[in-house]
């Protein structure tokens, strides 16, 4: 854990912090003059401002994580009394999870699969819509707001709404019956592939607007001159898009992917409302599996170990995504 945090820290923020310190235009000579009011010095003020955030993070994130880490090495469950009475079992939970627990393995694979499919679709649809929105037309701002609305809706409500839409007598089946006849209708939540498809559709509907929003603001910020130059040099619109615009959009695309990956890896609410992981465990995501372990089966220690594996995995994933892209991210950030 520590080494990961240390390794991640410089790559993400060090250069930025360094830049901030460099442009701090308040060196000692000014602080002499303003010291008359008895205010705190630079360092003290800075520390003071950071304090509340640090306390909250420490109490509400770091302490529970330490407890969870300790717990993951025990066989504790609520029926065994206090956490201090728990039996220390070493890496037993971890080896069980990583080697024997196929349900966990499948949940991981499934989550990665859902994430890959959803993010690709969201990216393509979002980019397509964003490109259409480069044109000027009447009612553009209203349409823009309408296209953003899904991402403002609560995940639980989105899950519930699509659960209704996918009912066997719901409007989606009704439309299918109208187009292809009633024998083509689908029992969405009774078969694993269709249930997975329902999850993907829901997730894509919910979060394509985020890609659309981020990519559109990126597209609007693309400078005109390189495009003009390319056109003058004889590039056709397709070449301009793939060779000039898209490369310039790269930093924004990366930001969008990082943000969405961080979120979709935790996918829970929508699936909970749609399928509860069913039929069987065929739509179970990592979060849903850990939730069931801890709060349905009360295997809290085992659940904590699973949570840690996921945590380390997602930290590594984000780190891997960030490393080659650090520069772009910081450029956007400045």
């Amino acid at each position: 854990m520590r080494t990961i945090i240390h390794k991640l820290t410089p790559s993400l923020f060090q250069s930025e912090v360094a830049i901030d310190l460099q442009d701090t235009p308040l060196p000692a000579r000014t602080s002499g003059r303003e010291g008359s009011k008895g205010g705190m010095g630079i360092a003290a003020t800075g520390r003071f401002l950071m304090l509340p955030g640090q306390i909250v993070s420490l109490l509400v994130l770091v302490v529970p994580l330490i407890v969870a880490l300790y717990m993951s090495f025990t066989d504790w469950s609520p029926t065994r009394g206090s956490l201090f009475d728990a039996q220390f079992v070493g890496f037993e939970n971890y080896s069980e999870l990583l080697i024997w627990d196929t349900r966990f393995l499948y949940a991981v694979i499934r989550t990665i699969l859902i994430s890959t499919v959803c993010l690709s679709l969201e990216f393509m649809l979002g980019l397509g819509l964003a490109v259409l929105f480069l044109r000027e037309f009447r009612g553009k701002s209203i349409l823009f707001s309408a296209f953003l609305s899904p991402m403002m809706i609560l995940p639980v409500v989105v899950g519930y709404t699509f659960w209704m839409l996918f009912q066997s007598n719901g409007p989606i089946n009704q439309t299918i019956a109208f187009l292809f006849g009633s024998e083509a209708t689908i029992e969405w939540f009774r078969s694993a592939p269709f249930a997975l498809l329902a999850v993907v559709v829901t997730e894509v509907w919910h979060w394509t607007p985020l890609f659309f929003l981020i990519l559109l603001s990126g597209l609007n910020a693309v400078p005109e001159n390189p495009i003009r130059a390319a056109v003058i040099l004889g590039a056709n619109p397709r070449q301009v898009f793939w060779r000039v615009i898209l490369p310039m959009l790269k930093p924004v695309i990366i930001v969008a992917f990082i943000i969405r990956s961080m979120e979709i890896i935790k996918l829970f609410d929508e699936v909970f409302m749609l399928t509860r992981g069913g039929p069987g465990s065929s739509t179970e995501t990592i979060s849903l599996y850990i939730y069931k372990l801890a709060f349905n089966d009360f295997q809290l220690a085992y659940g904590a170990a699973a949570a840690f594996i996921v945590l380390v995995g997602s930290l590594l994933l984000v780190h891997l995504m960030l490393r080659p892209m650090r520069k772009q991210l910081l450029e956007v950030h400045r």
Partner: protein
Amino acid sequence: MLSKKLTIPTVLIMAVALVMVMFPVFWIAMTAIKPPTDWNASPAIWVPSEPTFINFLTLFDTDAIRKYGVGGVSQSATAAVFGSVFASVIATALSVAIGLFSAIGISRYGNGGKATPLIILSGRMFPPAAIAVPFVIIFSTIAMIDSYGGLIAIYVAVTLPFSTWMLKSFVDDVPREIEEAAMLDGRSRLMAHFRVTIPLIRGGLFSTTMFIFILNWSEFMFALVLSYSNVNTIPVQLAKYVTATAGTLYGVQAALAVLAMVPLILAGYGIQSHLARGMTFGAVKQ
């Protein structure tokens, strides 16, 4: 660059996209005003012939639905609405206040150790299930389970990265010279921030507040595992209705869903121009 005019295919694509985007919203809104006979009709009824507000009424007066011959709803949603408003408002205020301190600290002093920004950010990376498990244990030990205090503490912690980074991006936009001028006038550093920086980012502060409110109001999993009888929020109540009735109370559930999403859509449209900034931790400015 690319053609600036709308052609017929693009208009068609837009129209199809608009229908796909709006249809689920339309469906949930229509279901919320359907009388019980239309709830689960087969084939499904798209627009109710006799729209009614009985579903909304039933949320707060569980027996109201009985006049349609439908058994009453087991639980009123009053407590859930109260709980959602209470927890979201307090958690949002705390998160924005603390985030504002951190934002100024990071933007102006690059301070707090190099790890702090990362620790704050990684709060968002943890799978909620990973923090929920230890929380339940810690909170049961210190008698904070099933209490709003516990729920609010978690909400503040998980939204802190968003409020900090979003506010930092607004603070970054304020020229330092303005603060320096205030400091030369004899104000202390801290007072300069309070009197000068904060008023200058009013708009950003408002957007951040709305954005954090959206996050808190939408939160589901922590509320689900930390609530038994005292604590309740709208998302948890919605899940309870669906479980308790196997989802057969379509209209009432849809009414609660509509009630839950109206404030968010209003807040979301209100801060539309800053939504990208919030979602990307201030990395994308619009």
